[in-house]
Every structure is written in structure tokens, then in C-alpha cells.
């Protein structure tokens, strides 16, 4: 018989319980009802701050949405439980609905604790706990800024959440201070050395840090809005916005009211199987007090959810003790803490490496014989974390100091035992991962993570999972292939180097010497792109190079669904004269083209047939337009706002800079398409941080962001350098782009490239700004070569009869249009007929009213 499980609470831990129970309850013994207070699906609270980097709350959703379509599961959003009757086994909602249960799980989590500070309820005071909290904070700050105000923000609390909140405030453009009562930041995770390294790093991000400071009250305006924060020993801090991030308290009120045993410092007391003191009632996550304490981390909550799922199915699982390891990227600063980070084990030894200049602090805690790893703290560079954490309690087997030295000195290879935990969020061991690769056929990262769940929560273990995967594949004799395709065993970056060094300049030579066969639609465009970078003076349609181009590059236009093309003239920076616009309009009208403004501030003309392209371009070139390269894996556009020329807020000439950049990089071929943006002030009207390269003007120059966009997984660009002069800016972008072009994978966007290149953004910054690889002069020269040899592709084509001869509809009827094209007029413009429309109607419209044919 089916029994009814009611889960009170709809957060991450409740989600995990449903997922675990549904995946194991093959006999369908349980029907599940989840009563969630928030009006939304369970979401990833740990990633809340990413809401500020433009992510929709929808993107924070957890796991497979299919879970909630399961007929055995009912998710009720926006439902609050008012009381429970443990005798009658029912809960009553605030709408007086009574729901009966067989078993009940409390997963109510915790609430943000606000210390007793006077006026903490004033307008402008926030906590940092739910999507609604975060959204309200954002709206409030944006409203103040829209009024033209410089917004001052104070975050009370210098722990994890406080620093997250500070990053969020900073991202919203508020000046930001963090006030912490304890003598250091992140007092629960790092020691004094780590805390001061962290504070130093955070101060360099323009966030003021006050430690050992106690806030006393919020001072308000006559309208009752926050205006300043009073501090015990010191002057008032201006504060239009205050965020309290001073810890959380369990939401144990339902349990208290029903007589459940409550812990000394709150939380519903449970045994190691997560049972409360009342039969039929369980508690998991941040509301549960287990082993005498409440855990404010998601990993122990997940473990509890798994235990209850197991117990509900007659299993015997018990709480294994919690791992309080954390690794975070706070404001771009790496912080990790794991195991016995404070060295409380008797006889524990510390090894510390600190480099205050580089902002790095690393500590390992070892057993008294200096052989067994007990824990550690990493600030500023936590790259060793994913390898070290699973080694806690084990012998390191190498000189411990070698794990702490700066990157590049020597990579340490770890041989993890099978029972070493790799993903602590989901409790996945190295052995489980090896087994999934060896016996369950998981041959790539995505299927491996799907199968084992490793890396699907916080993601910090992904590097080690990937390494285990590759090692296991290599051991199984499977070569971990970076091969481009069957014709080349090399990766794009390797092929680039080969072509650069050998100076081969035709596909035939390259494939004969370094590949096999005659290529395909994957390797040919890659070689075309490499040749365009290394031999920028050559035209895309020159000789054999023409055969390598995909259709877009081959006809220098973008193929559309019916086989016609769209044409995009370059409009650098989006600046265009009225005469230019009239010319474009006339061309579109005369050829019957559909016109649309693109997302990158250009005009796109759709519906041009291949044989019309030269005539269209003749008109555009005569009017001074150039190819917009909208077809290539190349620089597309540089978007700009109006800048200081017209805008009352602009601090620099963003239009001028955008035009300079677009002309500098026009025609530049790359692993994927490239877009840039330039905003004239921090209001960011050009949305530059959504671009591969984003430039935002400051009072002192330009801030340079890189690696935005990300395609189907949107990413905001990250800060590479601040307050650059015009010359410094151009040089940094030159090097960034050229380094990406040389080392990017095929179709790898800059966002992914920055993430995946060894050493990440810091490495890229080092190469670009400090010439750490000694290749800067080479990159500069390569870019100079590109700039000097730029020729408009369409202009050159129009002057070359041989190239023009390719623009025919049919080799034996060069000007005869494709008779299958059909158009329908919608909103006064032509668009391709749908298959249904084609079936039922006479030909509607073929090309424009005037059919222009090239002579």
C-alpha cells in the first residue's frame, strides 16, 4: 500500500530527499508531498550571488525538472505550515487546510539572524537568504542609482555570506564596506594568517574591511530610510543600504510547538538516523541538530536527506559525521578550508607558505610525524584544494611543502585511494568514479557526472574528477583524445603551433604532413581560420583556401533557413550617418530584403540570393560600407553606448573607443565568434560585461573585462585590469585576443577558454599584463600583422572576376533564381513561407518588386 510522506520545506535538502527517494523507491511505496513556503521550485541557494551576474532565478533551479512531473510527487509552492499534530499525524497550513501524513520530514532550514541593532528594520536594510531578499536588494540599489545617487553600502558580517553580499553590492555599483565583529574575516573557516591575507585581497577590490568592530544602530533619514551605520569605536559609516549577514538560526518553531526535543542552541534534535524525539517525524538539513550541533552547510544536509530516504525504504544508513570543508571563489578570490583547519588535533604541525605581495596564504595541518594530512587553509590560490581534500586522514606520500609552492614549480600527482571522498556535496568517492568509468562506460565528463552526481553541486571537485577520468581512460588503453576529427590527431591549439612553426600554407600540405584523408566540415574551417591568423594578407577565397570555407565564409554572408543569405554591412561602434542609413534602406528596398536591427547594433538584410550578393555589395561598397564579417568565426561587432559625447553621465568617449577597436580587430578570425562592448560609464548601457571583451569607462581610464557571453550558458565577463590608458587598453586586448586565437579549442568561446586554460584568469592576466610566458612581443607582432594587412573582403572580391564567377545560382543558368523560394508578407516585410503555407498557396512573392540582376 502506498504511504504518504510529507516534507515541510522546499529547499535544497528537501529536493535531495525527493530525488533520492524517487530514484530508489522502485516499488513505489511512497507518495510524496512537498510543502514549500517560497513561491518557486527548490533552487540552489549556494549560488544565489550568481543572480547578480545576470542569471535568472530560473537558472538556479536544481537538478532535473522532470522530478516535479513525477506523478508520485506533488510540489506545492507558496504553502506555509502553521502547526503539526503529531498524535493525529496531520499538518495544518496557514490556509487551514489539513494534510495527513504517514511520515513527516522537517526540512524547514534556517532564517537569517539579525543582531539586536536599533532600526535594523528601516528601509534599506536587508538580509541575504532567499531569491526574494536578493531581488529586493537589487531593486533598492538600482532605484537609488537611477536617482543619480552614489550608493554607499555596509555589510554587517564578514563570514561567507557577508563577503558574498559585499561582492553583490560591489557588482551593483555601490561603494562597499564590510564590518566584522571578530578580529578577522571568515573566522569560522580561516585562521589569523588566512584572514589577514583575505582582507588584503578584498581591499584591493575596493571593498573596505573593518574587523573587531561592533555596529550599534542604523541611523535613518526623516523618511525612515537607512542613511548611516553607527559603530562602537569610530565615526559613523555612510550607509544607504545595509545588509545583515550575521549567521543563520534554525527554523525549529514547528518542532518546538509540537513538543519535539530542541537543542541547547536551537534546532530539532535528531539521532544519527535523523529521527526526532517523536515517532513518525524526521528532521534534516539546517533545522536539524545532529551530533549536538546544527550544520550550516549543504553537504551534511544532503547526507541527512540520503539517510532518511534510505530509512524510509527500510535501510540502515547513519550519519557519517559532517565534512565542513569549503572552497569558494569570493569576489574572485579563492578561499578554501578543509579538515582540521585550525590544528586542534593534539601534536598537530603547521606548514605555512605566505606571499603577501601575491596575496597568497596556504597552510597545511599535519599529524605530529608530519606525514598524515589533517587539514588546511588556502587563500588566494586554492588550486590544490580538489587534490588535497580527499587526502585528509591519509599519508601525503610527498614532501608536504611541494603542495604549497606556487603553481608551475611542480605539479603534484596524487594517487587517490578508492575510498577517498572526491565530491563531498554528493558523497562520491574516487572508487565510485573509477568504477563508473571502467564498468559503466562513462567516457566523458558529462555522462560521468550525470551517473555519479559528482561535481553537480558546487563543482569544486570537477578538476579532480576530470583527472580521475583521464587517468582511468588512459589505464584502460583508451587514448584521451584531443583530436580535432578523424583527419587530424592534433587539437586546434597543437595544429596552430604546427602550422606556425612549419610555415605550411595550404591545406593539402598540412593534411599530407600532419593528417590523413581530405578533411571534413570540422577540420577544414579550423585550418582556414589558422591560415587567416598566420597569413592575414591572404583572401578567404584565394586558391585552395576557398575550399576550406564553410558556406558563410565562402559567400561572405550568413546562410538562412531557406538557403538565401543575410548581409550585414559593418557599422563600427554602431555609429552611422543618415546617408549611410538611407543607402542601406534603399538597397534593402530595391532587392526586396527583410531588414532587422541585430543584437549587436547593426542592420541585417535578409533574403539575398547567392547571385544577388555581388550587386548588393557593389552598392554598399560604393557607399563606403565594408563587410561586417557577421558570417565568420571572427570579430562581429563592438557595441557601444552613446558615451560622454552626448550622455550626461558618460565619463569617456565610448563611441570613439568602440570604433577604434572595431577597426583594429575587423576581419580577425578566431576559434569562435567574438563580440566586444564599450560602456562610457558604470551604468553599462552597452552591456559590455556580456561580451567576450567588455570595456567600461572609469574616471581614470578603462576597466577591461574578459570572457563574457558564453553562448547557451551565459557568463558575465571578469575583470582583467583596471584604469587602463587608451594605449594600455589596446595592448591588453591585442594580447588577450591573440593568445586566445593561438590556444583556444575549436568553437571554444572565450568564457570557456578562460575557465579551462591551466591557471585560469590569473594565468591569462599574467600572460597579458606581465608577459609571464615571454610571448608578449610575439603576440603584439601577430596583431600588428593582422591590422596592417586588413583589406575589405567584399571590395577585393568585387575587383576579381574569378572570385565573382562563383556567385551564380546555377553554373548553366547563372542568373536564374531558385524557383523553390517562396515568401509571405508579414508586418510589411517578406519572410520565408512555412511548409504549410507553401502547400496551400500559389507562389506569393519571389524576391522584391524589382528584381535586380547582375550584368
Amino acid at each position, binding site marked *: 500500500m502506498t504511504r504518504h510522506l510529507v516534507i515541510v520545506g522546499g529547499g535544497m535538502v528537501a529536493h535531495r530527499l525527493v530525488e533520492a527517494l524517487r530514484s530508489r523507491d522502485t516499488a513505489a511505496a511512497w507518495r510524496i508531498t512537498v510543502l514549500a513556503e517560497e513561491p518557486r521550485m527548490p533552487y540552489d541557494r549556494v549560488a544565489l550571488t550568481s543572480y547578480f551576474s545576470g542569471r535568472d532565478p530560473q537558472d538556479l533551479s536544481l537538478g532535473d525538472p522532470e522530478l516535479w512531473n513525477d506523478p508520485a510527487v506533488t510540489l506545492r509552492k507558496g504553502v506555509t505550515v502553521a502547526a503539526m499534530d503529531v498524535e493525529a499525524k496531520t499538518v495544518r497550513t496557514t490556509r487551514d487546510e489539513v494534510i495527513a501524513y504517514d511520515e513527516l520530514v522537517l526540512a524547514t532550514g534556517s532564517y537569517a539572524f539579525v543582531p539586536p541593532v536599533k532600526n535594523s528594520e528601516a528601509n534599506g536594510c536587508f538580509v541575504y537568504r532567499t531569491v526574494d531578499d536578493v531581488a529586493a536588494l537589487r531593486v533598492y540599489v538600482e532605484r537609488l542609482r537611477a536617482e543619480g545617487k552614489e550608493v554607499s553600502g555596509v555589510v554587517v558580517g564578514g563570514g561567507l555570506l557577508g563577503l558574498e553580499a559585499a561582492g553583490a553590492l560591489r557588482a551593483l555599483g555601490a561603494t562597499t564596506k564590510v564590518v566584522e565583529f571578530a578580529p578577522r574575516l571568515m573566522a569560522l573557516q580561516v585562521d589569523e594568517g588566512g584572514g589577514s591575507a583575505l582582507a588584503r585581497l578584498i581591499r584591493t577590490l575596493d571593498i573596505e574591511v573593518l574587523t573587531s568592530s561592533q555596529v550599534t544602530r542604523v541611523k535613518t533619514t526623516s523618511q525612515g530610510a537607512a542613511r548611516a551605520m553607527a559603530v562602537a569605536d569610530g565615526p559613523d559609516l555612510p550607509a544607504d543600504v545595509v545588509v545583515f549577514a550575521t549567521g543563520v538560526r534554525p527554523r525549529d518553531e514547528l518542532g518546538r510547538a509540537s513538543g519535539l526535543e530542541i537543542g541547547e542552541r536551537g534546532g530539532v534534535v535528531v539521532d544519527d538516523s535523523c529521527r526526532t524525539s517523536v515517532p513518525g517525524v524526521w528532521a534534516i538539513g539546517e533545522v536539524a541538530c545532529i551530533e549536538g550541533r546544527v550544520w550550516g552547510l549543504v553537504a551534511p544536509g544532503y547526507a541527512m536527506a540520503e539517510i532518511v530516504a534510505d530509512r524510509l525504504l527500510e535501510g540502515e544508513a547513519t550519519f557519517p559525521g559532517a565534512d565542513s570543508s569549503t572552497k569558494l571563489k569570493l569576489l574572485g578570490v579563492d578561499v578554501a578550508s578543509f579538515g582540521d583547519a585550525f590544528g586542534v588535533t593534539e601534536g598537530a604541525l603547521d606548514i605555512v607558505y605566505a606571499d603577501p605581495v601575491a596575496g597568497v596564504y596556504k597552510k597545511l595541518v599535519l599529524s605530529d610525524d608530519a606525514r598524515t594530512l589533517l587539514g588546511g587553509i588556502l587563500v588566494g590560490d586554492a588550486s590544490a584544494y580538489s587534490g588535497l581534500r580527499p587526502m585528509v586522514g591519509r599519508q601525503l606520500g610527498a614532501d608536504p611543502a611541494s603542495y604549497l609552492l606556487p603553481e608551475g614549480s611542480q605539479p603534484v600527482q596524487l594517487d587517490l585511494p578508492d575510498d577517498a571522498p572526491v565530491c563531498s556535496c554528493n558523497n562520491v568517492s574516487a572508487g565510485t568514479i573509477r568504477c563508473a568509468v571502467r564498468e559503466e562506460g562513462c567516457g566523458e565528463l558529462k555522462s560521468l557526472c550525470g551517473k555519479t552526481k559528482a561535481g553537480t553541486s558546487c563543482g569544486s571537485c570537477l578538476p579532480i574528477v576530470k583527472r580521475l577520468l583521464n587517468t582511468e581512460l588512459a589505464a584502460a588503453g583508451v587514448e584521451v583524445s584531443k583530436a580535432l576529427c578523424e583527419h587530424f590527431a592534433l587539437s586546434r591549439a597543437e595544429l596552430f603551433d604546427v602550422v606556425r612553426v612549419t610555415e605550411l600554407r595550404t591545406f593539402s600540405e598540412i593534411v599530407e604532413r600532419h593528417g590523413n584523408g581530405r578533411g571534413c566540415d570540422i577540420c577544414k574551417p579550423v585550418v582556414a581560420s589558422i591560415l587567416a591568423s598566420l597569413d592575414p594578407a591572404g583572401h578567404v577565397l584565394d586558391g585552395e583556401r576557398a575550399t576550406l570555407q564553410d558556406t558563410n565564409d565562402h559567400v561572405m554572408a550568413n546562410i538562412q533557413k531557406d*538557403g538565401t543569405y543575410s548581409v550585414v554591412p559593418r557599422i563600427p561602434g554602431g555609429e552611422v550617418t543618415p546617408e549611410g542609413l538611407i543607402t542601406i534602406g534603399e538597397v534593402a528596398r530595391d532587392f526586396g530584403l527583410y531588414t532587422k536591427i541585430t543584437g549587436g547594433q547593426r542592420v541585417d538584410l535578409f533574403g539575398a540570393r547567392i547571385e544577388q550578393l555581388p550587386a548588393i555589395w557593389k552598392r554598399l561598397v560604393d557607399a563606403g560600407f565594408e563587410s561586417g564579417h557577421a558570417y565568420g568565426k571572427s570579430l562581429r561587432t563592438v557595441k557601444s553606448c552613446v558615451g560622454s559625447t552626448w550622455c550626461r553621465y558618460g565619463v569617456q568617449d565610448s563611441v570613439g573607443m568602440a570604433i577604434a577597436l572595431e577597426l583594429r580587430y575587423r576581419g580577425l578570425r578566431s576559434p569562435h565568434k567574438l563580440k566586444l562592448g564599450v560602456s562610457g560609464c558604470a551604468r553599462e548601457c552597452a552591456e559590455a560585461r556580456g561580451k567576450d571583451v567588455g570595456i567600461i569607462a572609469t574616471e581614470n581610464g578603462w576597466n577591461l573585462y574578459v570572457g563574457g557571453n558564453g553562448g547557451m550558458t551565459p557568463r558575465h565577463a571578469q575583470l582583467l585590469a583596471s584604469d587602463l590608458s587608451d594605449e594600455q587598453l589596446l595592448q591588453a586586448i591585442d594580447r588577450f585576443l591573440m593568445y586566445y586565437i593561438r590556444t583556444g579549442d575549436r568553437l571554444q568561446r572565450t568564457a570557456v577558454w578562460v575557465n579551462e586554460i591551466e591557471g585560469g584568469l590569473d594565468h591569462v592576466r599574467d600572460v597579458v599584463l606581465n608577459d609571464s610566458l615571454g610571448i608578449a612581443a610575439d603576440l603584439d607582432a601577430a596583431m600588428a600583422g593582422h591590422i596592417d594587412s586588413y583589406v575589405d573582403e567584399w571590395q577585393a572580391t568585387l575587383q576579381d572576376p574569378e572570385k565573382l564567377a562563383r556567385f551564380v545560382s546555377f553554373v548553366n543558368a547563372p542568373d536564374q533564381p531558385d524557383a523553390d523560394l517562396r515568401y509571405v508578407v508579414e508586418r510589411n516585410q517578406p519572410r520565408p513561407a512555412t511548409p504549410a503555407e507553401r502547400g496551400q498557396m500559389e507562389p506569393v512573392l519571389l524576391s522584391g518588386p524589382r528584381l535586380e540582376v547582375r550584368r
Partner: protein
Amino acid sequence: MNTITAVAVCSYDVLLPERGVAALIGQRQIALFRTHDGTVYALDNHDPVSGANVMSRGIVGSRGDVPTVASPMFKEVYDLRTGQCLDDPDVTIPAYGVQVVDGQVLVSAGDE
């Protein structure tokens, strides 16, 4: 009895190695390809997946020993000799016989 007529379409010289051209035979659109070794192949120009007449604009190459063209629209790869799609066994493009006689490309496109 069906008569197969070979129609002269163009001179061999206008075909560039490893590229295609479209041609009209009556109302029928065909795509002609010249591979690296000089062989000429003819397929229907209609891309059965996208429904557009674009096959002649695909990238010519090889898969194993098979001479291929990839649809420029969604990149399915076809055997130039038979029109068989190598990525989906259910999809085939009509293939036509080709001869090169006296520098002219002749295509046998059924009994039209």
C-alpha cells in the same frame, strides 16, 4: 523502357577542386562536385533535412575512404558516390551518373 539521357551541363574546367556548383537540368536542381582526385559526382541539390536547395555549397572531404560532402545547413555528411547519409541511415539524396567527355560534364538525370 526508360531512356537515360546524359545532358551536357558545363565544361569540366569551371569545376574547382573540392567545391560544388549547382546546375539546372530542366526544372531539376543538381549539385556537381569535383573531388581532390579529379572525379566528378552529382547529387540532388535539395537538402532533405533542411528542405533548402543548398547541397552544392557544402564542404567536400572524406570519411575513411568515402568521398563526402557535408550539408552547409545542419552538417549531415553524405557519400558523394551514392547520396547515402552517413549520419542517418534513413536519409538518402538521389545520386546521378556523371561522365566527362571532351572536357564537358555530362549528367544522366533520368528520363525527363
